[in-house]
């Protein structure tokens, strides 16, 4: 999973089955100090994350399907799986 910051969202009424009635977030990956690092990705929200939240983004199909287990979920790979409260660097 990757640390990221939710920088926006996508509204989409026409999509394949598993993406219908799902919130799609735009996530900017960040390094442990919070600085943007890498390209933004889209992910399905599974934890009611909002813009500005620091989140955990999961990028693997089988894991995604443990979270989103419904018809057509075979097409899901990116999921926001957690909202981060704090990152403690040792």
């Amino acid at each position: 999973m990757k640390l990221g910051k939710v920088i926006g969202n996508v509204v989409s009424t026409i999509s394949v089955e598993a993406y219908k009635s799902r919130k799609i977030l735009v996530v900017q990956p960040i390094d442990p100090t919070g600085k943007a690092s890498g390209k933004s990705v889209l992910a399905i929200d599974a934890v009611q994350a909002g813009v500005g939240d620091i989140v955990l983004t999961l990028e693997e199909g089988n894991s995604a399907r443990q979270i989103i287990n419904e018809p057509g979920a075979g097409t899901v790979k990116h999921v926001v799986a957690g909202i981060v409260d704090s990152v403690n660097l040792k």
Partner: protein
Amino acid sequence: MKLGRVIGRVVCTKKVDSFEGLKLLLVQPVDENRNPQGDALVAVDTIQSGPGELVYYETSKEAGRVLETTMNPADAAIMGIVDELFIDKSL
């Protein structure tokens, strides 16, 4: 999953059988500010995305499952059309 803009269509008469009947669109990946980012790719479309439309696509095995019934060998497929894209520039 990435944002992309549909910039064209690809027609192949000679192709593997399991591609039969599938629409192949040319997609230019774009970043959250809609600027082109990376090389164009060919993605299967099952939701009638049109030229110029902003879409989002997924790659690898997940793309092969856009048809409920049969797997297809595609490694990129359009998953939906973007109606609105909201980006908070202050973040």
